[in-house]
């Protein structure tokens, strides 16, 4: 818990809920009749409503991006490093909006919500969301907040894909687009990892075809396994070596199948903690959304053509040790933007943290983002 709120924090924040009763037709063809979006805002919307930044979350993220919910919170929001007074998304200047995506499990309508048609939780019957569906729902939230045009849409990983989708689907509704540690589509290897994660969950005996709520249980072990696997792909080999090496938990080998190494202990802890806090059906849904993302597919698989209608300035950032979405994948986005003659700046940040690096306040990365959002100019020598 914070003894006192740091000066560069947005402080104590409270989530809000917006109810939408206009049906939303999804990429899958299915329709959600009504839904709720849970969101938080930081900073103040200016008079001409031109200073709003949308932050899109990644696989396991949510609306709580910055600040604290109470003085008892152990940690601030997931992107607190970048949102606050004086930070890249400077809340003295900008009005920052973060939401929990549809299908999530942190307050927006998702598999754990009650399906009005049945009076029971949607469970596995909740429609699989495509990135474009999220963006459409985010546009409706923007309407609700009176924001015609975002100053910027910012996202890392799956969040970066949403930012990119914004520039394609609503070109006139954003001025700047920051696509961080993302990819224009998943590779076979990415999909393979997601499939193993899904299999871990669905093969857990407690999964009950996704209707585990009815059995008053959760597929805890499957979800923990999925998270352990995912977590390995978020770290780099170097960062795991630095963090754990071959350090032993008890100082000697046990010669049984309990935990020997620190890295095993860490992964189990991460898995268990996650399985208590996250819904398995949401995890399945999010990984499918990732797999399906391929905006160029509608444009003869030509990403430059796909991005040709965009009107915003782009920032693309990758991290040297990210092997989940390696720098080459970001470079594909940059190449397409250059071929489409769109304004873009690109930086590959030299960072040891792997995919997770996008959450860290690495000075080079944050200065890049900060200068993109707020170009201060340079005095000529």
């Amino acid at each position, binding site marked *: 818990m914070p003894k006192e709120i740091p000066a560069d924090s947005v402080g104590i924040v409270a989530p809000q809920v917006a109810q939408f009763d206009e049906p939303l037709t999804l990429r899958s063809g299915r329709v959600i009749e009504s839904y709720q979006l849970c969101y938080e805002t930081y900073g103040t919307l200016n008079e001409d409503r031109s200073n709003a930044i949308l932050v899109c979350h990644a696989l396991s993220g949510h609306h709580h991006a910055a600040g604290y919910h109470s003085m008892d919170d152990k940690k601030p929001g997931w992107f607190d490093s970048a949102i606050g007074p004086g930070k890249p998304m400077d809340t003295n200047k900008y009005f920052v909006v973060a939401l929990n995506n549809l299908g999530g499990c942190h307050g927006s309508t998702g598999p754990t919500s009650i399906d009005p048609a049945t009076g029971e939780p949607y469970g596995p019957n909740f429609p699989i969301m495509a990135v474009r569906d999220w963006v459409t729902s985010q546009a409706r939230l923007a309407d609700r907040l009176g924001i015609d045009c975002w100053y910027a849409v910012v996202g890392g990983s799956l969040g970066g894909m949403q930012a990119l989708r914004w520039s394609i689907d609503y070109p006139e509704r954003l001025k700047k687009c920051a696509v961080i540690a993302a990819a224009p589509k998943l590779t076979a290897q990415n999909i393979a990892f997601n499939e193993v994660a899904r299999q871990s969950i669905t093969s857990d005996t407690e999964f009950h075809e996704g209707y585990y709520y009815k059995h008053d249980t959760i597929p805890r072990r499957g979800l923990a396994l999925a998270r352990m696997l995912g977590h390995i792909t978020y770290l780099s080999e170097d960062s795991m070596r630095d963090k754990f090496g071959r350090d032993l938990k008890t100082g000697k080998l046990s010669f049984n199948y309990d935990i020997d190494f620190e890295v095993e202990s860490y992964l189990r802890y991460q898995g268990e903690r996650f399985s208590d806090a996250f819904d398995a059906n949401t995890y399945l849904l999010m990984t499918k959304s990732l797999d399906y993302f391929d905006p160029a597919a509608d444009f003869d698989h030509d990403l430059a053509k796909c991005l040709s209608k965009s009107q915003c300035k782009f*920032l693309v950032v990758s991290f040297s040790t990210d092997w989940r979405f390696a720098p080459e994948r970001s470079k594909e986005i940059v*190449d397409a933007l*250059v071929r489409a*003659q769109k304004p*873009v*700046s*690109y930086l590959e940040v030299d960072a040891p943290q792997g995919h997770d690096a996008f959450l860290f306040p690495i000075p080079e990365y944050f200065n*890049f983002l900060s*200068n993109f959002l707020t170009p201060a100019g*340079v005095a000529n020598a």
Partner: protein
Amino acid sequence: MRSDLKHISNWVKEGDRVLDLGCGDGELLHHLQSTKKTTGYGMEINPEQIVTCVARGVDVIHQDLNDSLDYLDDASFDTVMMTQSLQQTRHPDVLLNELVRIGKRAIVTFPNFGHWTTRIYLGLRGMMPMSKTLPYRWYNTPNIHLCTFKDFEVLCKENGIRIIQRTVVNTNHEESWQIKLFPNILGQVALYHVEKETV
């Protein structure tokens, strides 16, 4: 302000789409954008410089110029510039051909290894020349492919590259009648405006 800006500016047209390879802190592009309304990008390898470019509002792409520029379409820029970097690349001949492929025209500047002081330094002292333009020792110099103006012009000829204009200056980018008379001996820096010869 960089003293080569004036010369380079003269060769860039209003509204040109410009690519600056090895753009440093983006000063040249910023100057062209504000005075000539140009569009385009810089490419740079140094992250600190990249961050400065963005502060200026100059679009910049992190790129090692030794890596392929294949992804850039033919004649997709009006002008491709490369100031004081050609001699630092691994394959200057390949890159020069890329410059005139990607750009309708290209501007290349580099230090002259045929300057009289360099010639005397090597001739009399028998050591690799060092000067204000070439301040490095042989083992730590980034200038791995130095050449003279003559060398460069031979390379252009061999590759079907036409020299539209050439300006030879001293280190302060000033012209003089002496330099005009003996460019390859008295000139320290050359600015070349080139294009692919049309067959």
